[in-house]
């Protein structure tokens, strides 16, 4: 299903306001200091449109950084388990996502449905409607075009808006979910004629390499010295993983209080030293080089092989977040050109 509409710039907020009224939760980029983050918004005015992208990805809408899996209560030798209630999962509109945010849910969904179908994730994800805005700007960290995406890529979005000029914004309705949002305020929209050329207004993001190059190179790169060379400055913090739209590693923890408690799932990162530490003391990934290799391999080799999808959307968040400027695009380019 695909429908092309036009909305006048000044009616966008009218529409958004309507959405805010009707949908329990609307998440949109909000300015925080010099950067922006996805936050729940209560009025249309608070959306930050002038940033290229947010610091953190929107994955937390379906995969919160801390969530309860279940709670328990002990009575003598008896233990009672309680599930998380349905009504914890809110219908949510993600407003002004970027194409690279939208595609991020692809890999996530595959990971959480690989063998075990993760109820909590699926419940949350099924309630998401993604309204993304095509990019007219990009920075030196962006590389979506190198990983099969693009500034106007519609994959994963339910609606995509593209600002054609100061008056008109092209609205591509991509799913029924999206359609429903349009219906909230039909008269904001008019049909768009086919002459409108979306591509011309999109940001230009140079292609630095292709996923296939990387995938092919990685097949022979396991023992390569490049991992040590690239990871030397890596501090082993989790910033990259935590802002990444597709990183799904988590830790399971117990929050026990006497005879009752809960089991908690929280984000983790393969960059941490203890991530693979065994009780025996042995650590299969003893150095930062091996952990960096794992990060790249996982996204560009293991995931395509096992899940038939790449684990990178080219959003460049990890590069922006890194305290020591581990620019992933730069590194991947080296790998691609590595002999």
């Amino acid at each position, binding site marked *: 299903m695909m429908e092309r509409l036009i909305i006048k710039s000044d009616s966008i907020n009218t529409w958004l306001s309507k959405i805010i009224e009707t949908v329990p939760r609307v998440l949109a980029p909000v300015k925080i200091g010099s950067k922006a983050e996805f936050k729940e918004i209560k009025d249309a005015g608070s959306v930050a449109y002038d940033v290229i992208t947010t610091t953190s990805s929107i994955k937390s809408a379906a995969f919160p950084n801390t969530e309860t899996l279940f709670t328990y209560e002990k009575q003598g030798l008896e233990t009672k388990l309680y599930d998380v209630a349905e009504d914890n999962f809110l219908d949510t509109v993600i407003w002004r996502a970027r194409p690279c945010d939208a595609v991020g849910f692809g890999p996530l969904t595959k990971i959480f449905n690989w063998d075990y179908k993760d109820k909590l994730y699926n419940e949350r994800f099924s309630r998401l409607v993604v309204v993304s805005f095509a990019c007219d700007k990009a920075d030196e960290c962006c590389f979506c075009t190198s990983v099969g995406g693009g500034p106007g890529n519609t994959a994963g979005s339910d609606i995509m808006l593209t600002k054609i000029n100061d008056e008109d914004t092209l609205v591509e309705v991509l799913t029924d979910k999206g359609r429903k949002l349009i219906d909230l305020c039909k008269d904001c929209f008019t049909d768009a004629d086919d002459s409108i050329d979306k591509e011309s207004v999109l940001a230009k993001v140079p292609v630095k390499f292709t996923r296939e190059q990387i995938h092919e190179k990685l097949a022979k790169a396991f023992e390569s010295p490049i991992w040590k060379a690239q990871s030397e400055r890596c501090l082993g913090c989790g910033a990259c993983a935590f802002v990444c739209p597709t990183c799904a590693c988590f830790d399971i923890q117990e929050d026990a*209080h*006497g*005879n009752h408690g809960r089991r908690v799932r929280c984000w983790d990162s393969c960059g941490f030293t203890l991530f693979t530490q065994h*009780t*025996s003391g042995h*650590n299969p990934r*003893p150095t930062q080089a091996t952990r960096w290799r794992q990060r790249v391999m996982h996204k560009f080799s293991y995931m395509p092989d096992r899940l038939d999808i790449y684990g990178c959307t080219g959003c460049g968040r990890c590069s922006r977040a890194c305290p020591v400027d581990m620019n992933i695009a730069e590194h991947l380019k080296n790998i691609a050109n590595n002999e």
Partner: protein
Amino acid sequence: MSKIGVFICHCGENISATVDCERVAKSASEMEGVAFATDYKYMCSDPGQSLIKNAIREHHLDGVVVGSCSPRMHEPTFRRACSEAGLNPYLCEIANLREHVSWVHEKGEATTLKAIDIVKGVVEKVRRNKPLNAIEVPITKKALVIGGGIAGIQASLDIANCGQKVILIEKGPSIGGHMSQLSETFPTLDCSQCILTPRMVEVAQHPNITLYTYAELDKLDGFIGNFKATIRLKAKSVDYNKCTGCGLCTTKCPQKKIPSEFNEGLGLRTAIFTPFPQAVPNKPAIDKEHCNYYQKGKCKVCQKFCPTGAIEYDKPDEFITEDIGAVIVTTGFNVLKTDFFPEYGYGKYKDVITGLQFERLASASGPTLGEIRRPSDGQIPKKIVFISCCGSRDPAKGIPYCSKICCMYTAKHAMLYQHKVHDGESTIFYMDVRAGGKNYEEFVRRAVEEDHVNYVRGRVARVYEKNGKLIVKGVDTLLSAKPVEIEADMVVLATAGVANKGAEELAQKMHISYDPYHFFAEAHPKLKPVETNTAGIFLAGACQSPKDIPETVASASGAAVKAVSLLSQPTLVREPIIAVVNRCAPPMFSTCVGCFMCETICPYNAIEHEEIKDRRTGKVIKTVAKINPGLCQGCGTCVSFCRSKSIDIQGYTNEEMFAEVTALLNK
């Protein structure tokens, strides 16, 4: 799943009067990990204890909580009971329901609920307690006594007579200390030398005593039962194996004008000398400061005359190290010199002397052979003034304390003077006369009544010289502060007893504490008067505070018993409440990163460095902290300081305390 037994004691009525013990036991039985809970009238009684023992066997308990009186009271009792039933004693803990609940709260709901909470807290702790074993430390069966005064002599003899080895070190050339300088002793007026010298000889001859004179403690390492003492044997320049003590050298020595320390500067000695005729060992040593050979490079007269060729000039100081089990410090005291007192002439008047100097004048072995003659011209003083509390009890002089012995020896001095100079006239200026002690008051009365010593209550403002006489200006506070002025031929100052020079330094060497006046501090002023805060080191005599002879001897024997009771044990058994640095699987080996900031935290220097080496190559992989179980006293300050939580303290582990605190609050 643990199996804890909870035993709530009524303590007769003491607890049950305000706490509903049955209910506490009942809710305890519902607590997680509790396998058995009951209450009983007297838990500490025999039936009470067997109740616990039986429960342990019957229910295979792996932990016991007794809700009773304070752990300071019966923790040992119940822990013993547990171990008798085969349960590790450290898996038994006390919930203090008496001192901390029933005795301090009114009867009521809240009180019972608090009792339940406390039990819950302790249960959670015990669930995490680990079995511990008392620590056994070997003991070196040898005592070190520092200081050869009467205290050191007494302590050494007592220990030696118990069949334990003793090393006695004395910094001077002879043992005997101040007591050997005294003439007669109060209150019996028996001759000091006569009662002391036999003891000195006994020390010298005792098979269990090794005596080192002219020796000082250089270093003390280690811990209770296992000290390592480094002793400096100062070169005597005389080979005692060859020397027969004939004394020819001392008669020949050309340096004859050296003020004798033994005579408090009132007599003279030679450069090679024995301090006094009854000295032990009775062999000379060369005083390098005054010896021509050492100072000018030529002389060697003594060597020329020595019939046995015992003189050895160029022998350096020697150092020996000894393994020691216990240490007794008996380094004694000193008295202020006259030059301390501007108002009494800064010591520039020859005939203003200290009490100790007077002892020498009065002593048969002294410079005047026991006749009271004044230093300036050797005349017999007809009028003599004694001033007590010189420095003592005078905060302005920095000595707020009472020197304790002066009242008595001043009375004695006056008495001796009257006995020796029958037409003499003696006056004592005093603040109070403190004559507490067996026959002391009677003694003072005798001085006043039989020997007509004139006691004037008041301080002396000044002593100055006026045409050959000493003028003593003071007030008589009993005669409504009437100023008095006395012409005297000699003035004797009862100067304050003070800590020896270097006391502070010595204390630091041994890690024992000392008071602001550098007297060594006892562990407890009443209940641990001869112990120090450092286990295995004891105190006796005037190094703690001024003491008279009976007191000194008593404390010496006390310290000796403490040392012997330590040395007579096969091994030293200590509570295993000590810190431990964790060890874990390689490649980490320990979570300790070896920053060693805990080293500065530890009051006992118990933190050691351990190098973890590669088994094959022997290469050092990592240096981590290690706690010396002998030194650690278990304060746990390092535990809460350690950033990586690599140190923990047995019996109060992080896990245990965390669990107890959170349990108190969990509903």
